[in-house]
């Protein structure tokens, strides 16, 4: 064996990486020009982006904010030396009509003898965020806020529709009546009878006592806000209201339907499956046709819900079916051990659902719930088909004004951007939540 070796004994000094693989150049080589094919794609998309941005910006960057009509806009653009149909945006319509796109025909004080009431929907939606905070960001806000969340379902209609403050309080009192009945009967006749008794008591209260009591209290202490008719609702306010009401109401209905679909009781199960599959099998627009033409026929003669109320009912039913499927997914995702664990602790069905199953299943389904909400919120534009003044239908109303006859892109663009902001932030929130709720290790 020869003992000659050519192994270097001391380390060479470290060299800098080649200039082409670090910094901006290196990043570009790796991510944009890593091969012939990639380089071609990069160049094509770069050119595409350039032309799109150039066209869009030169269209959008025009000083037409102060214009009072489409003709004024054209004049401004003409003075700038631009001609033609796509010479430039006419932002005057947005600056003049954005309030209408937001609030529809909600009283804004412009008519004689009316006050500007638009603070009410604004307050309602600010409170909505506050009321949702304990649910959405449970670890970051004081727990006491949950009381606001509980009061909010009664606060929202009071703020939006106005009227006497005693009506929502009387409705809320129904829950108190039910609870009181539960406590009284529980001591006398056992828990099952107490549950039945409390439900019966609450229903009796709502059917027979709530409205006389509210009327009486309103006579004694007339507290309230100026009532606003639902046909004045419009714009984004209408979309958000429909979305919030539908999701808020569909959550409990959806939970019941999902439990029904999972249950062993054959008839209950088939009723729930039938309802869910029927609603999911037809387009929302047909349900809205039901709201606009049929719902009053289904009700006892003489009842006359206004159209917004009917839309609320149908959109809620629609959302409940989708919600039920989301929650069923959450229930199915729970490991079987959770159900078995609850059984082995001796919990009965409702205790197990309330203490073990539902908290976990709902937590799993929050992203699904949020995306259902996004879907319903986007679908609220469909109410324009049956003549409600959502933002999309308001564009027709604005075009009917001779000043703005023929304006298209600015209005659609504005509405699209607002919808995008709402929906995109909600979807980001649901992604954040998915990351936060993930309990496995990644």
């Amino acid at each position: 064996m020869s003992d000659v070796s050519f192994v270097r004994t001391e380390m060479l000094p470290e060299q800098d990486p080649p200039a082409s693989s670090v910094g901006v150049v290196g990043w570009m080589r790796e991510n944009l020009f890593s091969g012939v094919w990639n380089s071609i794609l990069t160049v094509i998309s770069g050119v595409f982006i350039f032309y799109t941005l150039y066209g869009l910006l030169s269209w959008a960057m025009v000083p037409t904010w102060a214009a009072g009509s489409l003709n004024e806009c054209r004049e401004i653009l003409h003075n700038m030396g631009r001609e033609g149909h796509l010479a430039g945006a006419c932002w005057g319509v947005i600056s003049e009509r954005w309030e209408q796109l937001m609030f529809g025909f909600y009283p804004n004080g412009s008519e004689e003898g009316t006050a500007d009431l638009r603070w009410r929907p604004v307050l309602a939606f600010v409170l909505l965020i506050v009321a949702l905070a304990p649910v959405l960001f449970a670890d970051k806000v004081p727990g006491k806020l949950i009381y606001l969340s509980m009061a909010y379902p009664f606060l929202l209609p009071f703020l939006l529709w106005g009227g006497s403050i005693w009506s929502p309080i009387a409705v809320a009192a129904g829950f108190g009546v039910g609870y009181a009945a539960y406590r009284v009967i529980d001591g006398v006749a056992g828990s099952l009878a107490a549950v039945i008794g409390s439900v019966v008591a609450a229903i009796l209260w709502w059917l027979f006592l709530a409205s006389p009591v509210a009327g009486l209290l309103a006579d004694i202490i007339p507290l309230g806000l100026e009532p606003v008719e639902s046909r004045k609702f419009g714009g984004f306010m209408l979309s958000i209201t429909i979305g919030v009401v539908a999701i808020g109401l569909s959550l409990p209905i959806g939970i019941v339907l999902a439990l029904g679909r999972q249950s062993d009781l054959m008839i209950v199960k088939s009723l729930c499956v039938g309802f869910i599959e029927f609603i999911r099998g037809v387009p929302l627009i047909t349900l809205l046709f039901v709201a606009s033409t049929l719902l009053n026929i289904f009700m006892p003669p003489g009842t006359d819900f206004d159209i917004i109320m009917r839309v609320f009912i149908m959109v809620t039913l629609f959302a409940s079916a989708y919600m039920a499927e989301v929650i069923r997914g959450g229930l199915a995702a729970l490991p079987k051990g959770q159900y078995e664990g609850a059984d082995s602790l001796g919990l009965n069905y409702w205790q197990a659902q309330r203490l073990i199953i539902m908290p976990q299943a709902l937590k799993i389904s929050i992203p699904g719930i949020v995306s259902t909400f996004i879907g319903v919120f986007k679908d609220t534009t469909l109410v324009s088909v049956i003549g409600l003044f959502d933002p999309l239908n308001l564009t027709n109303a604005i075009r009917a004004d001779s000043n703005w006859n023929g304006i298209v892109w600015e209005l659609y663009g504005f509405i699209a951007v607002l919808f995008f902001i709402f929906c995109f932030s909600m979807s980001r929130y649901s992604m954040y939540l998915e990351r936060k709720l993930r309990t496995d290790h990644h």
Partner: protein
Amino acid sequence: MTTLTDPPKESFRLSMLIYDTRYRSLTIQVIAMIGFMVLIGWLISNTAQNLQALGKEPSFRFLSEPAGYDINQRLIEYDSQATHLRAAFVGILNTLLVAVMGCITATILGVIIGVLRLSKNWLISRLMTIYVEMFRNVPLLLWIVFIMAILIETLPAPRAFRGETPEATMNLADSVAITNRGVYVPEPLFSNSLGNIHLFGEHSLRFDISLDLIAVLAALFIGLFIRRKIKTRADAIQESTGDRPTTWYLSLGAVVIPTGAVLIALGFHLGYPELKGFNFKGGIHMRNSLIALWLALSLYTAAFIAEIVRAGILAISKGQTEAASALGLRPNRTMSLVILPQALRVIIPPLISNYLNLTKNSSLAIAVGYMDLTGTLMGVTLNQTGRELETVLMGMSIYLAISLLISMVMNWYNNSVKLVER
């Protein structure tokens, strides 16, 4: 010694209906059933009272009355003297037409975008992300009316094509005219046509099936069958000798020759649209409403399909790719033999449910005046006859039938590819 005693004789007490788990479920179900029946009965009795007050006895006789309105985009012959039932049938076919067209383009676009979103090219993947977010977060109805506005406002009118030096010219060797009244494309014509089969005689649901089309499809199927045989034989040769014979030209010929022969025998040629007077004549006229709806549905659904495809590809662990290359498979074979079969299992169920959504969303046609089922039966027919109950219920049941059909296909597929577990 203990003596066995009989268990206490059970006597049925009424309270056992609630407190005994053997009977409780029965009680609950009976109560639920009764409640449901009462609800239905209540709704029906309300409806009957209301309809009586309005003087509208429910009847479907209006279906055989003349419709009296025109439908400009249609697949089968129809005129305003035809019945309401025929109008509804035209509507159903229009719904299916836009749904099928939409599903095809949405799938193609969605797969391309989903794959490109995973591209290593930073710019491309960002662009695709923007596309997906842009379409997913803005309502479909807005896209439909927006695209309709683009078509009407920016495309040239047919008269721009006239004159010695026209402002607009036809595309693709004078075969396609894109105007603000719609797109005119060449129509397939057969000079030695075999004629049509007339189904259902003079009934409102009558329709014709072109024998030419059947002949061409039959030739195509024969070609595909031969191609399959060639492939099986090539597989067998590869199994026994280890060499795979080159078969692509045989396969190509097997598909092209029979179809081409039938086309030539039938005298296939294209009928080009021509400018006559102020409008185009000849060719197939796809109206703006159809194009806007089709484009919007495809672009919107493509964004969702892209996400599904991306998730499906990401769901296949990298180990699969590495194992395939360790076995010596080339990249495209890895894709077709290892990745795709597994990814499809993840992709197809949500894909089909997106097809379902697309079909349901096609009902938004009413916003641009495309006469689909919603526009005919639940639109004009409803307004003309005032038969809300019958038309809306009929429309809903037809949509429901289409949906259930699609979900049946989905369930069948799910069961056939389900992983068999313990």
